[in-house]
């Protein structure tokens, strides 16, 4: 023990009690802070461990682009399903191209195209969408999401890397291949 401490006379000890209590309080506080810091560290560790990897990091952009095929194979007024990319390539009557996500905007079921009724009918809660992906009947609240379509040398490509949410269909959305316009 340090001499400075043993020298303290008994009479002064009681006067120093508050100081001793404060010191204890201080040390307790220190422990508490350290404990909280440890907790925070573990929490931080867990959160960063569990954070999902950014899609860009795992999938290369090139993988996301699906080559759908030659333009001529998509006749106007048809819908072609692409299972691997989970989208439909829609050729509107006027020749416009749309890539619609298969995922129902309600809760995420895969929506089949029903050729007989010319509608996308969701089996899960009976939402219906028309050929442009617009909602015909609820519960789905917004149209089917879209992917970007590009046409190069009469080959149709769809970029499934980014999906676009939209609130309605407008004439700016379909892509018109140069030939179809002429």
């Amino acid at each position, binding site marked *: 023990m340090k001499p400075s401490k043993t020298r303290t006379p008994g009479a002064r000890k009681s006067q120093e009690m508050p100081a001793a209590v404060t010191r204890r309080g201080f040390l307790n506080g220190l422990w508490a802070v350290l404990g909280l810091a440890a907790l925070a560290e573990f929490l931080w560790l867990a959160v960063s461990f*569990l*954070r*999902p*990897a950014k*899609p860009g990091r795992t999938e290369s952009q090139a993988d996301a682009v699906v080559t759908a095929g030659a333009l001529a194979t998509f006749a106007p007024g048809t819908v072609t*399903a692409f*299972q691997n990319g*989970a989208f439909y390539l829609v050729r509107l009557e006027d020749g416009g191209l749309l890539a619609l996500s*298969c*995922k129902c905007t*309600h*809760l*995420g*079921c*895969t*929506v*089949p195209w029903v050729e007989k009724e010319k509608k996308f*009918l*969701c*089996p*899960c*809660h*009976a939402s219906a969408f028309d050929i442009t992906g617009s909602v015909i*009947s*609820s*519960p789905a*609240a917004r149209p089917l999401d879209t992917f970007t379509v590009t046409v190069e040398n009469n080959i149709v490509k769809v970029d499934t890397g980014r999906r676009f949410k939209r609130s309605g269909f407008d004439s700016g959305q379909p892509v018109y291949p140069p030939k179809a316009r002429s």
Partner: protein
Amino acid sequence: MPPATEKRYKTLNPLGTLVLHFRPRRVPERTLRFTLTWGLGGMAAVLVLLQLFSGTLLKFAYGPLPTQAYESLVRLQEGFLFGRLVRNMHFWSANLLVVVVCLHGLRVFFSGGFHPPRRLNWVVGLSLFILLLLSNLTGYLLPWDQLAYWATTICVGVLEYIPLVGSRLQQVVLGGPQIGPATLRNFFALHTAVFPALIVMLMAFHFWRVRKAGGLVIPRAPAEEPEEKPAMVPTQPDLLLREAAMALAVIAGVLVLSLIFDAPMGQPANPGLSPNPTKAPWYFAGIQELLVHFHPSFALLITAALVFGLFCLPYLDYAEAPAGVWFASATGRRTALIAAAAAALATLLVVALDEYALDTSTMLPNLHPAVSLGLLPTVLLAAALAGLYAVMVKKFQATRLEAVQAVFVFLAVGWVLLTVTCVFFRGQGMKLRWPF
């Protein structure tokens, strides 16, 4: 404690004395009556143990990868001795647990077991119930069959409608943009480590709180005063023997069920094809039925409000605390019955009307769907509940406790009917149909 009992107590086997750490040494004699609890809490505990047992075995056979999961279950069922039995046991205990725990909660509520000093334990019990549902949900995906894949898709799809954090949360749960290997990994870890650990810890706390409260509520008639010094009996053997008998009966029951009925197993998961109809597991069917009628955000809001209400139930500052009296009082019984009848009528009427007569989107064409399918019906529902409460207080002179109980009964009956509707009466495209 009389000396003879004391001696017997000391010579107990060590297991008995261990169990007694969770238990008072003596319990009020009247709480032993079977019709107080129907042994529901104990049953739940036994079922949890069965789950831990069968689940651990299953873990030795299961491959948590989309490419292996389904195969591994097929192998388990065909190749392992008793493999099918163990899976069936896991399936049946999981489903029974939901039923038993619900009934247990109802029993506690209606026998006034949530008044002080048991308020906190009501909260603990509810948390356990939620953990149980989460366990079941995460376990539902693991077989990786069509049933699992799509039920999980729509359950997780609901998350997207949580304001602000919804899509982020969904991403975290799924571990990516859609259900895939990461989702299965997440669910497997949650199902086999996180939730069981939490459940076991909370269960211990739950039991300990029962002991702290001096055992169960002592049943009594509405007019009867609570006893000052109830007659006590030793926990061992009076209570433990009864519980052991109950446990054996539950185990036998689960075994028989598992021998006769197989756990369902559909086709392997196919992300490109949603079966028609796709339904959530039955314990979430109530929410799914709400989703048929409400905008998703509001269906979620209603569910969240109900859960919040349940948590608040013990803290509503009641004038009286008739612990042990079934349905609080004579008025309580009457009002509960009326509320149940009203709920049955209202629910069936609304479900049928919404299906066949009402079409809000054409009736109110220039309203946003969030209003016509969300805000409007939600406000109507809230008004109906407030009306019910007011009628109970004004017309039937119900106290706050009785009126709250009536609202609870109304919602509980409604919820059960919604669940039944969704499970049995919804066919292709979620249209109403006759099940038989």
